[in-house]
């Protein structure tokens, strides 16, 4: 079978050189910034260099060219030892400590590199073992070979001891590196035999393949896992090997049949090339096919792709919604625009609209209003279809029925949350399995989302109720403050009445005194009744009624509730249009704002109250000259329970905000720390 050693040897070099050239580029590009990748790439480059120029040398026509190519080839070879130990040291993490050692090796190699340019290294070349020309060692060649092997053996030892010392997974990995290096070098080293005239020659050719195996193992180690798990690579190699072995045997059997029966002439290199091609096909066919398939699918089946995307995206979106209209909106959107169904209907049980009631039927929800359409039809809970849907947990597909061609249940455990009753597609095409699968996915998402709306609605109602209770208690708390103020207000007129009445006995005959006394008494009694009246008005829970009110009056009345001490009150109440609002709630707004303003100025200051018109809007302003609100909390002050005071519940401003919003108004805060705060209400 052996045609010519020259051919085999050239081929092994060609193969090795190609593999190492590819490895060099590949490993380098994988991470050009990593020193490990750089050094290993350079190592591969040197091996590839050696391989390619060896081919030229062994095939050269004259001795001149043989020697020329040999010298060029050895330029790569002399750099193999230092790069080899260099990347192994990086891999093992020894660089920090032994940088000097690596440097020394480069210097030694540099010496041989220069020596290579002189006749002392390689003087001439001569034909050997059927090769056209091969190295004849010069006086410095032997020391180099000695250096090459001693350094290589040193590296093996380093790897061997590193593997002994390593633990766990790392141990396996380092020992793999050791065995791989030993294999590569013990086989690749055979090339030197030829220059000293030692046979058998074919060992050198096989040796080159060993070097290739080594390079591949290290490259894989570096790029994939750094130090990979040996069991992974072994199992992969075994699998690949068995696969190639089985297929290769079949192939060789067929070749044998051909050889025996058809033609005696057989071309070995052709067989090798076809086997390599076969391996490549095996390796890349699947990936290549997948790549082209997705590309061509996208190109030719674009509409379908969009449609699937829309459906799966809608499923995700539906799962995020918490209100029935927004979920229905997505569902109908998908039915009409993505799947293109002529008459889709979504049925929901009654409890979605009437939470308290016992539900007996599913109602159709209108595609535009998203509310139950009682005329549109209903499905009773006892309908056989409902039973079937719950039991089978699968869609009902009836291609003969144009209105109910496809019925999809939205199930959550054993509860049928909704029913999609879908008519024909606009295209009149039947529903495909994929359509049904995707719609089922949408249905299960919708079931979850719809069920969540119920718990969400319940939480929302509970929360609103709780907020109302708290708002009332907050109101009572502010009422407490107000009552203290009111008591004080009453005591002053009482003081006047009491004191003057006590004096009455002595002054009874003084007519002028009596007149003054009467006026004074009446004035202060009226004052007290006024205060009492306001108190009652505030304490009573009145039904909410909106009427036309003047904000100026509200502000003036509210202000009377406050005992204002140390603070100067400035009122700049310009006439404003009447506002349709609930008077009590407006009182509450200003009670809260004024109270906040007063509390913001414990050391005194100016409280300014303003009303004016601005671009057809009624504006009321409450400003203080207190400490102001830091910018970072200005957003939070309207949140319920946010309070900067220790005693505060933190509901005051949230109540203000809610009431103003309910009156279609806006609240604007303008505050500078140190300068005070202005709350501006716009209606």
């Amino acid at each position, binding site marked *: 079978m052996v045609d010519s050693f020259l051919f085999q040897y050239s081929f092994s070099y060609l193969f090795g050189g190609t593999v190492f050239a590819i490895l060099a580029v590949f490993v380098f590009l994988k991470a050009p910034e990593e020193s490990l990748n750089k050094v290993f790439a350079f190592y591969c480059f040197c091996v590839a260099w050696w391989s390619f120029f060896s081919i030229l040398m062994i095939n050269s026509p004259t001795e001149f060219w043989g020697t020329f190519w040999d010298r060029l080839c050895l330029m790569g070879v002399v750099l193999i030892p230092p790069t080899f130990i260099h990347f192994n040291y990086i891999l093992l993490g020894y660089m920090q400590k032994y940088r000097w050692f690596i440097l020394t090796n480069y210097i030694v190699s540099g010496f041989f590199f220069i020596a290579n340019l002189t006749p002392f290294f390689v003087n001439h070349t001569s034909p050997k073992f059927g090769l056209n020309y091969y190295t004849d060692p010069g006086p410095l060649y032997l020391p180099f070979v000695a250096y090459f092997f001693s350094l290589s053996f040193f590296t093996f030892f380093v790897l061997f001891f590193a593997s002994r010392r390593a633990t766990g997974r790392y141990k396996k990995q380092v020992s793999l590196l050791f065995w791989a290096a030993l294999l590569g070098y013990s086989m690749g080293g055979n090339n030197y035999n030829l220059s000293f005239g030692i046979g058998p020659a074919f060992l050198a050719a096989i040796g080159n393949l060993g070097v290739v195996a080594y390079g591949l193992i290290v490259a894989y180690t570096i790029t994939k896992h750094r130090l990979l798990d040996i069991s992974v690579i072994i199992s992969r190699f075994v699998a690949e090997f068995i696969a190639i072995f089985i297929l290769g045997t079949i192939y060789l059997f067929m070749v044998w049949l051909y050889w025996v029966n058809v033609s005696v002439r057989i071309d070995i290199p052709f067989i090798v090339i076809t086997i390599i091609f076969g391996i490549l096909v095996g390796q890349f066919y699947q990936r290549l096919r997948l790549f082209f398939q997705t590309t061509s699918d996208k190109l030719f089946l674009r509409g379908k792709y969009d449609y699937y995307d829309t459906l799966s995206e809608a499923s995700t979106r539906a799962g995020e919604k918490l209100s029935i209209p927004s979920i229905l909106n997505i569902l109908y959107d998908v039915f009409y625009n993505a799947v293109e169904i002529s008459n889709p209907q979504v049925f929901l049980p009654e409890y979605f609209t009437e939470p308290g009631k016992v539900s007996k039927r599913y109602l159709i929800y209108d595609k535009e209003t998203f509310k139950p359409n009682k005329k549109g039809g209903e499905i009773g809970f006892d309908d056989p279809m409902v039973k079937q849907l719950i039991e089978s947990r699968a869609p009902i597909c009836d291609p003969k029925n144009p209105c109910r061609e496809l019925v999809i249940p939205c199930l959550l455990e054993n509860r049928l949350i909704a029913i999609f009753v879908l008519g024909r597609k606009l295209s009149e095409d039947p529903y495909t399995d994929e359509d049904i699968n995707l719609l089922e996915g949408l249905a299960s998402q919708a079931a979850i989302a719809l069920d969540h709306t119920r718990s969400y609605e319940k939480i929302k109602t509970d929360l609103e109720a709780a907020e109302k209770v708290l708002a009332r208690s907050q109101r009572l708390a502010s009422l407490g403050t107000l009552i203290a103020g009111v008591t004080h207000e009453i*005591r*002053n007129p009482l*003081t006047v009445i009491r004191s003057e009445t*006590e004096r009455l006995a002595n002054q009874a005959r003084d007519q002028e005194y009596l007149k003054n006394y009467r006026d004074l008494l009446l004035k202060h009694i009226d004052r007290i009744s006024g205060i009492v009246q306001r108190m009652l008005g505030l304490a009573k829970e009145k039904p909410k009624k909106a009427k036309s009110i003047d904000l100026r009056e509200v502000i003036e009345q509210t202000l009377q509730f406050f005992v204002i001490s*140390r603070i100067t*009150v400035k009122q700049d109440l310009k006439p404003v249009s009447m506002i349709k609002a609930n008077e009590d709630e407006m009182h509450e707004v200003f009670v809260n704002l004024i109270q906040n303003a007063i509390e913001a100025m414990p050391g*005194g200051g100016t409280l300014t109250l303003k009303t004016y018109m601005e671009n057809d809007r009624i504006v009321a302003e409450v400003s203080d000259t207190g400490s102001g609100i830091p910018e970072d909390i200005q957003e939070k002050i309207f949140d319920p329970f946010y309070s900067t005071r220790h005693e505060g519940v933190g509901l005051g401003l949230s109540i203000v905000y809610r009431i103003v919003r309910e009156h279609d108004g806006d609240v604007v805060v303008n505050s500078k720390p140190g300068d005070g705060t202005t709350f501006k209400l716009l209606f």
Partner: protein
Amino acid sequence: MSNPIVMVVDDEVDVANAITNIIKDTGKYEVVTAYSAKDALAQLKKHKVLLGLGGNKIRLILLDIKMPEMDGLQLLEKIRKDFGEDIGISMLTAWEDDEKWERATSGFVINYIKKPFKSKDLIATLENFFKGDEGKMVLNTFEKHIEKRDEFSKKKKKR
């Protein structure tokens, strides 16, 4: 010797006048009426004897707490700072507030009269004061202050 001067400070004109009248009716005292803290300070300056070295002709102040701009408590602190401890001060107020009571009584006031008050209580305060019981009165009030403060702190601790 002229009658001692009593000053009534209250922002409510009617209340201030009523108190002034009650005191005037006794015929024993001269009364100055101030309708604000600023007014009161001006009066105090006006009635200094020998630039304050000889004390002040105003011997007693009946002081309201709730007043705009500067309230009675601030005024009390200012008087104690600027005019010393010689002038007797009686707090007149409609407040029933622990914190304010504490602040007022800590300023060595002779007593604390709650509105609405009986005329005879007011007169009694004046008479006791001018009889020379001032020290005793202040002490009593201050004792009460200490007692009550202890109560407050106990309450606070319980909380």
